[in-house]
């Protein structure tokens, strides 16, 4: 058996929206399918990226999770890939929690996925992400990849 890629119009409208200082710049995520946190030097913290999952189909989603799939070349350790969720959009929120591991199998049940509450039936809460680079680490042009997981019924 093989994975089934959903091709119906009713679900192809899943989109990740990226915000920066209140402005929606989702074309960036559409192009790369991932987020580039910019240039970060050893011991520095990246800009915070604010994002949300939107589901434009008639049906609702539940059980939303976010997994860290690819560290972009950074050797994983706790407290590097930070995350906070909030029902509010706030440019001043700084992530305080962090991913405890990499979802290496890409599975929805992976223990390192982080549960994200719904803001509505079709939208996740706002997710705040940044990278806190250790003093002995470098981050070049690597792309950090995340993956959404969610349930829907139809």
């Amino acid at each position, binding site marked *: *058996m093989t994975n*089934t*890629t959903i091709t119906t119009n009713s679900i192809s409208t899943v989109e990740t929206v990226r915000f920066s200082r209140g402005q929606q710049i989702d074309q960036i995520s*559409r192009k790369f*399918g991932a987020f580039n946190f910019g240039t970060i030097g050893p011991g520095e913290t990246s800009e915070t990226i604010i994002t949300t999952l939107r589901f434009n189909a008639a049906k609702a989603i539940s059980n939303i999770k976010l997994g860290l799939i690819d560290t972009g070349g950074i050797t994983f350790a706790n407290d590097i890939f930070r995350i906070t969720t909030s029902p509010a959009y706030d440019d001043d929120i700084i992530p305080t929690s962090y991913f405890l591991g990499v979802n290496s199998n890409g599975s929805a049940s992976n223990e390192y996925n982080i549960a994200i509450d719904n803001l509505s039936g079709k939208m996740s809460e706002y997710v705040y992400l940044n990278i806190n680079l250790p003093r002995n680490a470098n981050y070049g042009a690597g792309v950090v990849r*995340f*993956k*959404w997981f969610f349930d829907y*019924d*139809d």
Partner: protein
Amino acid sequence: MKYWYAKTKNGNEYNELDGTKWNEIKDDVIALRLHVDEQIVSLPPNMEKYHQAKTASSDFNGNNVTIESRYIGFFLGNNIVRVRVDEKSGNVSVEVENK
């Protein structure tokens, strides 16, 4: 073929392939099955409430939405019992979640 099949209180039978929307019948379901190719998973009949859904994933560009697994289940007291079939391997697992 992968689809759910449901029978309702009035004896009518529905399945995912005939265009039936789950939300339109879910409150009247008295029997529920999940067909996954050659596998058929059946739940006990006449449970108080049934449930079915798919677990999907999406990368950040939204163009690659994939079904990871699909499940059927029922409510039993304060628990939800789910039987899940992995889309890739066909493996079947049972989950009990306390609500």
